[in-house]
């Protein structure tokens, strides 16, 4: 420990001897601190330029008009005023909320069930796990391309199969009633394996003694699930819900390839509209305002989650 104390920049030893704290500059120029900044430098420079500065700029660009070529023009709140009256935006917002919460619910139910299933001792379990996880490895583009063919309403294998049981199987991606639901299904199918692994890690952290004690007390499966598994898993569930919602708000690839926002505007999501407004219609300022609204929604949901955490997350 002694050598570590010597090199700690807080330098308590020095302050005791001189009777005052070293200044911030002195602490920053301490040999260990200097070494630390050198280690940080390559990443920090890139991080500041390409991530931190753009994050700050994002706030400002929402108040401007910019077509990508001419100088940026300050327009105050007008983008936000326009957003409030824009029906496109309202529909995109509705679709995004429906898509995010619909998929998130499905993902959580599916991934928790899968995790419970693969947390048993069984022959071939590693194969089952790999199979459940497999859709996560493939790119969203590959998945979109394959499912688009499967969903083909007249010729696709899915409706060929369903056609044996019903006269009018759904139109899936070409029906404005079914398209968003189809995208929700594919998202949940692709993402469930990933969150299964998170839940599995959580389940493996639950002490066996708890279940043994419950067995002695004669608790049945449902009671064990409700009173041991769910509460012990709550920190993982909390993490899963937050990351899942953020990931779903970002989903772009499926809609871009499978529907292009259609039919009509039925699968137009906020992130898709931001892309179209900026990189297709050159309305970068307006799209930035939309992006800020997206950010505020994600922030609000995360905040509510953290506030509610104390009520249901156990430790």
């Amino acid at each position, binding site marked *: 420990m002694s050598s570590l104390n010597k090199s700690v920049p807080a330098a308590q030893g020095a302050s005791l001897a001189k009777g005052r704290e070293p200044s911030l500059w002195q602490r920053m120029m301490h040999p260990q*601190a200097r070494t630390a900044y050198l280690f*940080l430098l390559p*990443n920090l420079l890139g991080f500041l330029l390409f991530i931190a500065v753009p994050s700050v700029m*994002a706030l400002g660009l929402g108040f401007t008009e910019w077509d990508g070529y001419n100088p940026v023009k300050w327009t105050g709140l007008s983008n936000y005023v326009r957003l409030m009256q824009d029906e496109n935006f309202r529909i995109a917002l509705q679709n995004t909320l429906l898509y995010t919460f619909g998929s998130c619910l499905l993902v959580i139910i599916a991934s928790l069930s899968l995790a419970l299933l693969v947390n048993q001792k069984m022959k071939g379990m590693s194969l089952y796990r790999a199979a459940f996880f497999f859709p996560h490895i493939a790119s969203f583009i590959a998945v979109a391309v*394959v499912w688009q063919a499967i969903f083909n309403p007249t010729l696709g294998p899915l409706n060929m*199969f369903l056609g044996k049981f019903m006269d009018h199987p759904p139109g899936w991606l070409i029906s404005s009633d079914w398209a968003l639901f189809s995208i929700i299904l594919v998202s949940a199918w692709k993402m469930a394996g990933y969150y299964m692994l998170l839940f599995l890690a959580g389940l493996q952290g639950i002490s066996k003694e708890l279940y043994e004690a419950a067995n002695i007390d004669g608790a049945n499966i449902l009671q064990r*699930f409700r009173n041991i598994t769910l509460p012990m898993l709550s920190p993982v569930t909390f*993490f899963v819900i937050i990351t899942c919602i953020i990931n779903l708000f970002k989903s772009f*690839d499926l809609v871009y390839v499978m529907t292009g926002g259609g039919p009509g505007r039925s699968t137009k999501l906020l992130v898709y509209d931001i892309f179209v407004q900026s990189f297709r219609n050159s309305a970068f300022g307006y799209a930035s305002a939309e992006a800020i609204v997206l950010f505020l929604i994600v922030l609000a949901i995360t905040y509510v989650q953290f506030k509610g955490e104390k009520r249901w997350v156990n430790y």
Partner: protein
Amino acid sequence: MGQLLGHAVPKSLSHLFMILISLIMIVPFLWMLSTSFKLQEEVFQYPIQWIPQVFHFENYVEVWTSIPFPLYYFNSLKVSVLVTLGQLITCSLAGYAFARLDFPGKNRLFIMYFAAFMIPYQVIMIPQYFVIKKLGLVDSHWALILLEIFSPYGVFLMRQFLSGISKELSEAARIDGCNEFGIFARIILPLAKPALATLGIFAFSWVWNDFQAPLIYLTSDSLKTLPLGLASLNGEFTSQTQLVMAGTVLSLIPVVTVFLFFQRYFISGITAGSVKG
């Protein structure tokens, strides 16, 4: 669930159920694989012929030659490898500073990194474009490489792993007169190989699969990466599903190979953030 279920369900029934769910997850890929070997008129035959009578490998040859597929492949490989190397170097250095060194501003900087990792890409994508445009890098691979190397997630992951290595190792080396970079390169990094493998695989598959950033920055056909090529193949050859599927199979090969050989690193990359953090 061993403990949860006890012996409530017989093993054979469990297996049946597990196989059923595995099929739901795998069947779309099997259909893709089988379709990629078929003739156009066989693609949508019903009942589905899972094993084609004749394997038409010429679909693969056609995809490989009729669009610049080899070029897309090379571009994807180039960008993915460079970003992966860049992340391994810069993120392990920064992660080391956060995990094992003390300096003023450490907590504030770390919170900044952590916050950045929660911001959706679409929120900063327009200002990022502004910066890249000012640097004159639009329509070049540099745009993707620079935007993806400095990953806050990578720093976070390396910090988590590196803070788990005993501090006494570094102290012993310091007493022996080893400088900080020597400790990092000769003592800590060799111990952090699993973490580096995890980050490397994570970065590679992320960049290999990335779609939206290449869509924004790469406009010249000669620069396009595989996901862009696949999306345009899908748009151009709508009626030739067998070719689209052959292209999709080709695009999946590298990531699936990496997964099959390094499964445990894939998995540790996912669980590191939630459980150890």
